[in-house]
């Protein structure tokens, strides 16, 4: 599988008076894990949602495999998305959710059901999702993102709400994704997790990119050993 490439140019979006993205230019390296970091309300989720076409930017373009994101939804065939909080229709069971998605994608074979097995989701699949616990729901959310073997994975705070064992399983799965030809974009507030997972960093502050490039280069530049400190230092620099 060829990993998907994503390019954003001059992306702008405002919600009312709030300018959420102020001309974002970024290239997401194909076949790598890129973490989008930044303080709260930096525009991380809006950025992700513009790649998915859920948010319509005011100006600028999103290129997914060199095709501009617009009306044609076909490119989402290649994307697996794990939203921050799972958004499943409450009255459906896990199996019905999966059934609906396979119907919509027209794919029944060659599904990646590894996470369903590892998370032991099988016994929970026949209950309406509204009766599932937060953690189980998040596991289902993760399993669904990987299900169709996407060439672009978008994970918004993937380990939030997962217990350490499940978080570990998920992180292992994410780390193996580039080897299968998948580009990964993830957001997280946990810096140690980003150090563990991401090769590249896209650092957003108030809707602008303040750094993009390898994690290692940022550490080297700042002279810090921990990403948390390097990021804090950059934030202090951006505020000044």
């Amino acid at each position, binding site marked *: 599988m060829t990993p998907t490439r994503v390019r954003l140019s001059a992306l702008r979006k405002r919600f009312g008076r709030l300018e959420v993205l102020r001309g974002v230019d970024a290239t997401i390296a194909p076949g790598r894990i890129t973490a989008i970091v930044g303080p709260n309300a930096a525009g991380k989720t809006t950025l992700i949602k513009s790649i998915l076409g859920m948010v319509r930017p005011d100006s600028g373009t999103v290129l997914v495999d060199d095709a501009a994101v617009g009306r044609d*939804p076909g490119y989402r065939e290649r994307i697996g998305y794990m939203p921050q909080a799972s958004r499943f*229709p409450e*009255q459906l069971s896990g199996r019905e959710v999966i059934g609906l998605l396979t119907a*919509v994608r027209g794919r029944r074979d060659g599904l990646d059901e590894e996470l369903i097995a590892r998370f032991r989701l099988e016994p929970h699949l026949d209950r309406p999702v509204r009766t599932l616990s937060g953690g189980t729901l998040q596991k289902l959310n993760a399993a669904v993102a990987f299900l169709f073997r996407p060439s672009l994975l978008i994970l918004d705070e993937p380990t939030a709400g997962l217990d350490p064992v499940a978080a570990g399983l998920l992180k292992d799965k994410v780390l193996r994704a580039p080897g299968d030809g998948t580009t990964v974009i993830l957001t997280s507030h946990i810096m140690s997790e980003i150090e563990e997972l991401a090769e590249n960093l896209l650092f957003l502050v108030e809707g602008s990119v303040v750094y993009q490039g390898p994690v290692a280069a940022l550490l080297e530049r700042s002279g810090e050993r921990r990403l948390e400190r390097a990021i804090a230092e950059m934030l202090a620099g951006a505020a000044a």
Partner: protein
Amino acid sequence: MSNTGKVMTSQLRNVARSRWIAGYAILLALLTWMLLRFGGSGERALLSLLNVVLLLLPLVTVVFGTLYVYNAREFIEMLLAQPVGRGALYTGLFGGLALPLAGAFLVGVGIPLLVLGGGGPAFPGQAVMLVTVGVLLTLVFTAFSLCVAVLIEDRARGLGAALFVWLFTTLIYDGLILLVTSAFDRYPLEGPLLGMMFLNPVDLGRVLLLLSFDVSALMGYTGAVYRQFFVGPAGMLLALLMLAVCAAVPFLLGLHWFRRKDF
């Protein structure tokens, strides 16, 4: 199957599963049965049913539709991250709502009408007109409900707006017409009134039904004007067509807004 079809079947399953739809059908069946059984002759019962179609149906449709779209928020967001276009999703939502609502109406009103029947030789034609107008109004108010839910983010305000749409089309609009009539009572108003009436789906439905029930005398002297205009297949067809336009316009407006909405 197309994506619209897939969205619609999934929606249909959900809506059909809802107890409200069944309750709506049963309520309509009870009302129709009682009116036919105790409301005098078949034609007089139809006249009472007219109020059900013109008042109750729009209220139930617009409120149920609006609340349903708010509740389908997760469903919509989940599908937007899939290879499903917004047009297909919107059309699927519309169909998934309008079909069960129209189905509940057809079953609730249609079956008692078929079983109990009644009235004179004009009854079958009048019953068909009643059912047709009911189905068209269901489409109109489903489209209104989609517009409201797409435009207004907040559920409580959306419900308020849905109620306002109902109040406006069933009550306020007629009040405005009355106001115009009394303010310009020195002028010949038949033309402008006809035009105003053409813009409100509930008024269109009312005129269509009253004329087919042959009680236009109830509408006073303007009734005579409408009679001239509407009687005969051409006028009726035009009014029915206009009712379909009343459904198409909010449907397309809602689609336009849905395409631009951020989730």
